[in-house]
């Protein structure tokens, strides 16, 4: 028995535009961008920590949460290199 036999419309549930969008990160009806996913994960972590009363500078807390929410291959930074003539560069 297929969906149509069962009384449901069956067939394609999404428009051609949405199907095309699903292949484009960030498009309406498509996957969220990595940045949107990161922001969502950070908001969830912030909500979880809201009542913990951590004595941490808010700016530092944001940096820590961003690092914790970043996945492999999401632009994580590790190294700083000395420049000739002084200073450092990422």
């Amino acid at each position, binding site marked *: 028995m297929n969906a149509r036999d069962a009384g449901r419309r069956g067939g394609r549930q999404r428009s051609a535009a949405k199907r095309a969008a699903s292949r484009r990160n960030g498009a309406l009806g498509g996957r969220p961008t990595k940045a949107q996913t990161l922001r969502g994960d950070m908001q969830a972590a912030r909500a979880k*920590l809201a009542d913990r009363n951590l004595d*941490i*500078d808010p700016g530092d*807390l944001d*940096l820590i949460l961003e690092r914790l929410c970043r996945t*492999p291959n999401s632009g*994580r930074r*590790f*190294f700083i290199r000395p420049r000739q003539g002084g200073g450092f560069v990422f």
Partner: protein
Amino acid sequence: MSSNADESFLAELAAALRRVRLEAIVVGNVASILAGAPVLTQDVDLLVRDTPPNRRKLIKLAEAIGGVGPESISELTSTERIYGAAVPVDILYDRLIGGLTFASIRSRAREERVGRETLVVASLEDVIKSKTAAGRAKDRAALPILNDTLAVRRALAKKP
């Protein structure tokens, strides 16, 4: 070096460790960063057991990542360094300051994905213990943010 190149180098290092079959634990600030600490570093610290086979594997490791060595960096320490790779790799043998042995650090270590590879990484608690015992100015400077990171990790791990 771009951020993607940073992770690519660690993945290359992990692949080289796998190929030469060297059991190594990432310690120091790279371990801190992989635990979520917002810090940066100039090198990678690896803890290995000091055995003749491992000494031979380290030479192969250096070649595999485009470097040479490892060579002693000072008469005052047993730490050695692989030079010439994209990032210097420091080799520490058997233990870290703070009474931390290879076996004890390994027992608390976790596996972390870098690129498509996996590294064995010391726990943030062990990194903090080692830096506290070392007590150098650069270690003391990093300790507040490392302790904050540990507090956040623990708070997030708690069930609501």
